[in-house]
């Protein structure tokens, strides 16, 4: 017998975590713009502080508006719980800080968002946490890089900006065989295109600033716990399996079972690091998620048209989109991302740096800025912006050239986008003739 029906993705995108406000009848999620919450009585106050009752105390740690967003992303990802953070970077830091101590080690894909690379390569070592970067297309490299003090394996579903597709299933098996969790940055795909927990990942974070919000008006992050990793069996994570003097000597696995990680992240990380999300921001991101399935499908549909146009254009050297048979991860993408490979990709213009510069300066609909995942189409030159801290060798290792152009395809009419790209490419090639490189 098939299992009984449960709510599907589109329904959860609109409803998960929220029911009409019982006091006012408000249909939309209210913005609880308050720092703190009045206690019913002294006994209830004590019980809230001692984890004997559920509820809100202070909005740095939890807030009813944020809680709706946390439940919603948990429902969409198939997790047990989540926590809102001030940004995607804060979510990544919270994931690391919840389970990793000084003297530990991370194995990471080398194809990362520049900010993530900075955190792992330059900042974390100051706190005694080292990272080995490996080729995301080589699962065996992850295995070889694992050390006795490794505590985390990390990667992006679609590497930034080369769109290397991570074999989540294989890498998660490698991590689990070593008693390690796999953390995934799922920003580019969102749960509409890929749910990493279904493929063995243990923790997921998002820059909700991007496709989840979709509007480009709010910075935020989300960290989601699958509840599947066996922290106790691993014997590598004392923050979750030994008494924590900072919170009533709580042993989080003993008390919370599958929710141990996310509860520690809240009770320690949200409390002590304090990188919380404003309730107004949570509201804005919730408005975005309500239309996530519709928007993501349109993003993908538009991207396919733009990719086809560029791929056929004489002035384009290459297009790096995994749905193209020429992409090295084409086969993997078909199985991991059947709904599409997102709306962010790169291509190379003939004419190199000068042509690229002219192209950027000539586009009219695409906006030149350092973001992706907006409803509006965006464009950037990674070598001079998001990845500018990388030297030429590091750029090459991350699959970027000096002339690479990255697009984030928005929700405009695809024909208008193609026309805009066409005129900008045409202008760029005039430069090429005038200034051969």
């Amino acid at each position: 017998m098939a299992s009984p029906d449960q709510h599907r993705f589109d329904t959860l995108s609109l409803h998960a975590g929220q029911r009409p406000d019982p006091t006012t009848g408000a249909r939309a999620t209210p913005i609880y713009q308050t720092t703190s919450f009045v206690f019913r009585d002294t006994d209830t106050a004590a019980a809230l502080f001692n984890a004997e009752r559920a509820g809100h105390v202070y909005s740095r740690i939890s807030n009813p508006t944020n809680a709706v967003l946390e439940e919603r992303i948990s429902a969409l990802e198939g997790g047990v719980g989540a926590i809102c953070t001030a940004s995607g970077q804060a979510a990544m830091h919270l994931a690391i800080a919840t389970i990793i101590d000084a003297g530990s080690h991370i194995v990471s894909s080398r194809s990362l968002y520049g900010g993530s690379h900075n955190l792992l390569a330059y900042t974390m070592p100051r706190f005694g946490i080292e990272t080995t970067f490996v080729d995301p297309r080589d699962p065996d490299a992850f295995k070889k890089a694992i050390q006795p003090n490794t505590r985390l394996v990390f990667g992006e579903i679609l590497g930034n900006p080369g769109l290397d597709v991570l074999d989540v299933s294989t890498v998660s098996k490698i991590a689990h065989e070593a008693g390690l969790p796999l953390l995934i940055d799922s920003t580019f795909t969102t749960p509409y295109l890929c749910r990493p927990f279904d493929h063995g990942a243990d923790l997921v974070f998002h820059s909700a600033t991007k496709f989840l919000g979709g509007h480009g008006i709010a910075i935020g992050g989300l960290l989601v716990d699958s509840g599947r990793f066996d922290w106790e069996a691993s014997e590598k994570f004392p923050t979750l399996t030994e008494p924590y003097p900072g919170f009533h000597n709580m042993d989080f696995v003993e008390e919370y079972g599958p929710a141990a990680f996310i509860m520690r992240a809240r009770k320690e990380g949200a409390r002590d690091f304090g990188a919380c999300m404003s309730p107004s921001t949570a509201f804005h991101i919730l408005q975005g998620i309500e239309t996530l399935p519709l928007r993501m499908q349109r993003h993908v549909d538009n991207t396919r048209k733009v990719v086809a146009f560029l791929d056929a254009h004489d002035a384009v050297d290459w297009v790096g989109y995994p749905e193209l048979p020429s992409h090295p991860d084409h086969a993997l993408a078909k199985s991991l991302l059947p709904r599409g490979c997102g709306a962010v990709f790169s291509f190379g213009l003939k004419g190199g740096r000068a042509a690229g510069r002219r192209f950027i300066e000539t586009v009219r609909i695409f906006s030149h800025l350092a973001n992706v995942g907006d409803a509006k189409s965006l464009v950037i030159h990674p070598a001079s912006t998001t990845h500018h801290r990388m030297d030429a060798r590091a750029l090459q290792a991350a699959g970027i050239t000096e002339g690479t152009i990255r697009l984030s395809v928005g929700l405009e009419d695809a024909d208008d986008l193609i026309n805009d790209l066409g005129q900008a490419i045409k202008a760029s090639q005039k430069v090429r003739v005038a200034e051969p490189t």
Partner: protein
Amino acid sequence: MNLLVDSHDVYAYTGAQDFDAARNPLIFIHGGGLDHTVWLLQSRYFAHHGHGVMAVDLPAHGRSGGAPLVSIEDMADWIGRLMDASGIETATLIGHSMGALVVHEAAARHPVRVRSIVTIGISVPMPVTDALLSAAKANEHDAMDMVNIWGHGAGAQLGGNQVPGMWMMGSGVRLLEQSAPGVLYADLNACNEYRDGLEHSALIECPVQVILGRDDRMSPVRAAQPLLQALAHARVTVIENCGHMLMAEKPGEVLDLLIAALKEPAGSA
């Protein structure tokens, strides 16, 4: 706290306090395929409010060893041996779903050792559908989905968890996934085969509090009526907008009712 019962390791969560059998002990007993974590908030509260608390993992559940017990009667007798092992003479027993049946039966079989009982999400009998039993017997994930989906009320399936940021449907199925193969089936079968519960009600002399969920599809309020007629002295409370997973769906309301029940136990038979 770790104990030895029937030569097997048994784990009981004590609410983050040292267990003291002399402090009005409470024993919490979980439902089928679950473990002590379902009682986290309630057990923690009472451990810090004058009670010795044990939220026990039944054999083969959670952190306890051994094989699953195959009948509600076996489980009720096992509770007696658990009390022996932990130095408890008399206790209040609090159970949910299958655990509620265990509590009910224990109060009937061991009346001198049970001060009062609270049964949550109970009906007697507690029949289980063939489809669920069959899926559980085959250790199919569908069985966990059925328990999880039928177990949560319509409202809870859309969220609104009182514990900030936690998704009830995700947490519920993940906890069931942690149970060893065969355990869920053994539990469901024990519920299904528990035939004499109504007759045994006549043997229950202690105060009884029954807590039901208005939207419970696994132990519907109407299915609890024969039990409530047999336990005329029971105090009954129905929580609105709540399914079968009462401690997850309405943890605050359940705790308030437990506080009231322990403060002023319902009348004895």
